[in-house]
């Protein structure tokens, strides 16, 4: 049930010309600055706006092509809006059931209880939206969208209106969508942090066009793209939980570049996870260090270098074929004589685990 979309929207000053494809499952992040056309694209996919030039197909079903245009209410699409969009005259339960009731029983694939469990809203069901917090409302809104058994889930900056604390409260629920949903999810955001945590694939929009698209790990570390710059630049590494060490209370994870050591977690052996490594937490040495407290040290090859301002250099490394960013000072780069192809050792000071 992969998604294929092409839209051309011409509003004089603003032109959106986008071709997008998303695999049958997984989260595709659509990332870009405000005004680059993210919401326009999402509304076109949902059929909320009708643009004469467009093509949209999900699996074998064509939603828009030439004169054919399926109106929104006949599209099996779930939409989570940026601000609170719950119906104020219905309880949380009434909201969740509103869409579900309108789906023919034969098309209901997501059980109502499952949508409620997945978002942890069982205790909120009898409350009116006005008495829910911002994070709770977005969880109810997501459960409401899931309860319609959509074939495509669209999320338009669902966390943008929340403060940092609420975001932290809701993100784990969103992360679980990866594992739980077998439909494509389009997640629009201008937050690199959210995209890195949630997306599997990434589409980079810029001024109404696609600047780049591909697996998130690749795009985050491409030095020609804006994501690989600044103090928030980071890399994602695919890893598998391989062993727990009860003596030192550690967990070992296998990656393409070698074995990572993290503090002990409860994940079963074999669980696939993503490791998130900030570029500023990676330092480089020419020889493997001994007598260091750092456990995660990997042989790597410098792939590309790009100056970051006057003092710093962003280095794209290949660690067993997987890209990893390291941000070092220009002085260190000169001292180490860094150049493309150079063999180094990457010392990773800190790793965050994403499920």
């Amino acid at each position, binding site marked *: 049930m992969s998604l294929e979309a092409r839209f051309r929207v011409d509003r004089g000053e603003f032109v959106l010309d986008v071709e997008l494809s998303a695999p049958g499952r997984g989260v595709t992040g659509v990332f870009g600055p405000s005004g680059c056309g993210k919401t326009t694209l999402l509304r076109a996919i949902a059929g909320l706006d009708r643009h004469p030039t467009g093509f949209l197909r999900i699996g074998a079903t064509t939603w828009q092509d030439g004169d054919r245009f399926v109106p929104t*209410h006949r599209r099996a699409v779930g939409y989570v809006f940026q601000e609170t969009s719950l119906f104020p*005259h219905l309880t949380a339960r009434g909201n969740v059931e509103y*869409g579900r009731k309108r789906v023919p029983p034969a098309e209901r694939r997501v059980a109502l209880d499952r949508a409620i469990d997945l978002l942890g809203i069982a205790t909120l069901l009898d409350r009116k939206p006005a008495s829910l917090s911002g994070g709770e409302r977005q969880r109810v809104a997501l459960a409401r*969208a899931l309860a319609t058994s959509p074939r495509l889930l669209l999320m338009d900056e669902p966390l943008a209106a929340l403060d940092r604390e609420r975001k932290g409260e809701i993100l784990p629920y969103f992360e679980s969508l990866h594992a739980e949903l077998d439909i494509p999810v389009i997640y629009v955001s201008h937050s690199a942090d959210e995209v890195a945590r949630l997306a599997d694939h990434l589409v980079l929009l810029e001024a109404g066009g696609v600047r780049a698209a591909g697996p998130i790990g690749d795009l985050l570390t491409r030095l020609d793209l804006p994501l690989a710059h600044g103090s928030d630049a980071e890399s994602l590494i695919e890893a598998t939980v391989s062993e727990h060490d009860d003596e030192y209370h550690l967990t070992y994870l296998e990656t393409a570049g070698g074995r990572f050591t993290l503090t002990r977690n409860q994940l079963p052996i074999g669980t696939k996870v993503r490791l998130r490594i900030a570029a500023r937490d990676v330092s480089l040495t020419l020889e493997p260090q001994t007598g260091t407290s750092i456990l995660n040290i990997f042989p790597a090859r410098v792939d590309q270098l790009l100056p970051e301002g006057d003092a710093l250099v962003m280095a794209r490394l290949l660690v067993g074929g997987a890209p990893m960013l390291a941000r070092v000072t220009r002085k260190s780069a000169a001292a180490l004589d860094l150049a493309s192809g150079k063999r180094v050792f990457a010392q990773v000071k800190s790793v965050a685990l994403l499920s």
Partner: protein
Amino acid sequence: MLTRADLVALAITLELAAVSTLILLLLGTPLAWWLGRSRGRFKFVLEAVVALPLVLPPTVLGFYLLIALGPRGPVGGLMQALGGRPLAFTFTGLVIGSVLYSLPFVVQPLQNAFAAVGRRPLEVAATLRASPLDRFFTVAVPLARSGFLTAAVLGFAHTIGEFGVVLMIGGNIPGETQVLSIAIYDHVESLEYARAHWLAGGLLVLSFVLLAAIYAFNRRFRWVQP
């Protein structure tokens, strides 16, 4: 105390107001919905037409209606040609006059209420598989319900209170077209002040109770938005 004639006038008045309000809500809702959402170029023309009764002297409206509904007018003539009787000086004629005269009092609160609902809740409903009609009844109407109450009460109260149009096209026929406001006028003309007091005081209290009820309801049921 109220005489039998007064009670008949009261009954006619309430019936007129009830029938007119019902018709006004049926006609006014789609009209207000269209006005509240349309971006058409000529929307302002219709808005001005709907608002006309607010500024015109009721006698102007009554005069044109009298001509239109009379035996030689387009509507009255058509009725006669179809074997009916002209509508001037009938209860049906009064209902037509009341509906036109009270139209802005029903359409404007509804239009404002629909505009306040906005597009977003309806878009949300569309993504939840609700068809346009379904969205209207399950989202727009409940969210605009204070507007419906205001429209119904204003339409009802305003119809009870009208005088000029009713006098022009109703003809003050006791038992058919004589309503309270005209009965009061008759009492005063014939110096029956005591009877005028009963009717006038009654109307005053009724109108106050109706209006106080809307304001109380609107305060209690305003959706608490963050």
